[in-house]
């Protein structure tokens, strides 16, 4: 079995920055990611895209090359296409790569598994042709594929970015159907002080909106009662604006109402999680270095709490410095000196968050959907089913899973876990913390018997042996 000082899961901004920082301090690093190339969600395939496409995606995207290029360091082994399905005591990480299972052990483990889009369960959201806005963006980045007649539905700055990228790709969306209201904007302005410190983000947001206006993309704000129509696939979006019924015919629907930490890996290790009321999601309990109560496990990036790509990068560096100290490569004084400017940058990065959280709250109807709406895509469990289990005395998500399989399909609750907690909490009058979350057990992702049978040690890398303990 291969050994490294540090095993990092996730090659997004957090994981890539951490890998380089740790390697620069002399640690051997194995970086695992299930994607074929480094970049994570925001810098997806950044080294691979043709220049014309890169230009349309914007400078903020190609900025990611700074991080992917920094991976070319002797002490970093990047295993692309490695799907991690178990992390155990003692830093043993099991993964599947090229159809075979394998393991690598880290003296320390850093979880940098990023975010998932918050699911937006509305009637019809399971139809083919309905995707997340992030999925639409991945199609653009990775494949240069644009939807022809699409509408974007939900709230948040990512919606504007995707819309603009579609305009530049020559396939503008038919409309933006937005759920935030003018009252949300007014509330957000209370955080204007912080927002001004986050001025570059505001300016960017305003220039995106101006670009959409110039392209003539209609925006409908304050949309309610959203329903996606269609028999075999999405055909239209119905909604209400100030009480009046509207309908936009379309072929693709991109949904978005924010992102939430992808907590599967940390949960599987038993790391405690706490409800974050401002962001309406659970986040692992970590200190300012990303350290968990498991002394050899850190979490960095959006997986530790949503902060965006820049904050993720800084968080990765901070975690790597702390890990380097714990493994004896840095003294405490050295760590603190290196970290000081990073903490300052992190504060500046986070200044915009309270404004964004208030301006683009998750769609209330999708947080607590109507009885008929499917919440668990895998097992087709509806919101009303969960309410019924609660009426029968079911208090927690694990019991709900036993009652009706919510969270038991291949996605392991990634897209229904928060909805199950919210529905139970609403029905029982308990807090989300009291209600808790699904227990996540390995395998985090399905692994086949054939892959297990082919289990072998990853080819020994002599560079790693030198630094082995």
């Amino acid at each position, binding site marked *: 079995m291969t050994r490294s000082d540090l095993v990092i899961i996730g090659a997004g901004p957090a994981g890539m920055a951490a890998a380089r920082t740790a390697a620069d301090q002399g640690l051997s690093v194995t970086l695992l990611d299930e994607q074929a190339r480094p970049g994570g969600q925001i810098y997806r395939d950044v080294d691979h895209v043709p220049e014309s*496409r890169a230009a349309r995606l914007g400078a903020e995207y190609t900025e990611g090359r700074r991080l992917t290029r920094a991976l070319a360091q002797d002490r970093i082994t990047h295993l692309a296409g490695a799907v991690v399905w178990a992390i155990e005591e003692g830093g043993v990480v099991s993964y599947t790569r090229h159809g075979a299972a394998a393991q690598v052990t880290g003296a320390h483990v850093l979880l940098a598994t990023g975010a998932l889009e918050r699911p937006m369960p509305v009637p019809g959201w*399971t139809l*083919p042709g309905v995707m997340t806005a992030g*999925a639409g963006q991945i199609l653009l980045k*990775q494949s240069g594929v644009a939807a022809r007649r699409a509408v974007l539905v939900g709230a948040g700055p990512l919606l504007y970015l995707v819309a603009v990228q579609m305009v530049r790709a020559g396939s503008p969306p038919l409309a933006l159907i937005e759920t935030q209201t003018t009252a949300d904007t007014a509330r957000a302005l209370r955080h204007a002080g912080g927002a001004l410190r986050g001025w570059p983000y505001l300016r960017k947001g305003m220039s995106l909106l101006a670009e959409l206006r110039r392209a003539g993309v209609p925006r409908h704000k304050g949309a309610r009662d959203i329903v996606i129509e269609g028999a075999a*696939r999405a055909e239209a979006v119905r909604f209400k604006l100030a009480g009046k019924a509207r309908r936009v015919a379309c072929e693709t629907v991109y949904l978005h109402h924010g992102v939430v930490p992808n907590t599967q890996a940390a949960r599987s290790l038993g790391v405690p999680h706490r409800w974050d009321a401002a962001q309406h999601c659970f986040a692992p309990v970590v200190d300012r270095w990303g350290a968990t109560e498991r002394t050899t496990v850190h979490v960095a990036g959006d997986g530790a709490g949503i902060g965006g790509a820049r904050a993720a990068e800084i968080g990765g560096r901070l975690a790597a410095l702390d890990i380097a100290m714990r493994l004896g490569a840095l003294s405490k004084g050295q760590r603190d000196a290196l970290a000081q400017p990073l903490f300052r940058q992190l504060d500046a990065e986070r200044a915009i968050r309270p404004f964004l959280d208030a301006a683009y709250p998750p769609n209330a109807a999708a947080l607590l959907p109507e009885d008929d709406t499917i919440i668990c895509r895998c097992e*087709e469990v509806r919101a009303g089913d969960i309410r019924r289990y609660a009426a029968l005395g079911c208090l927690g998500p694990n019991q709900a899973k036993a009652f009706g399989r919510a969270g038991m*399909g291949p996605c392991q609750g990634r897209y229904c876990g928060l909805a199950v907690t919210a529905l139970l909490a609403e029905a029982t009058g308990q807090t989300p913390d009291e209600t808790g979350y699904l227990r996540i057990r390995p395998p985090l992702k399905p692994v086949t018997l054939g892959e297990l049978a082919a289990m072998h040690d990853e080819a020994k890398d002599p560079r790693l042996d030198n630094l082995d303990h």
Partner: protein
Amino acid sequence: MSTDSTFLETEPGGARVRVWFDGTPLDLPEGANLAGALLVAGVSRFRDTPVSGAPRGPFCMMGACFDCLVEIDGVTRQACMTEVRDGLHISRAPSSEAWRDPE
């Protein structure tokens, strides 16, 4: 399967290879993301759910939702995590059953 796709390739060109989806030959860009390439080729329904048989297609494109499951040469895979290679035999995945937790 519809032939007029609702998706558009913004940079057409490049090498194509032949694959089969439920017996229909398709020429897809070599090395492309399989889910994206199938969407462009007009496939919208990738699998049917094991519970009600409802149609599903790619939702997240990042390997998290498993709605893009297809069967490739007898193995259930996430199309959004697979690259187009010459000669793939792809079919709608009835075997999404295979990945259900037996608990």
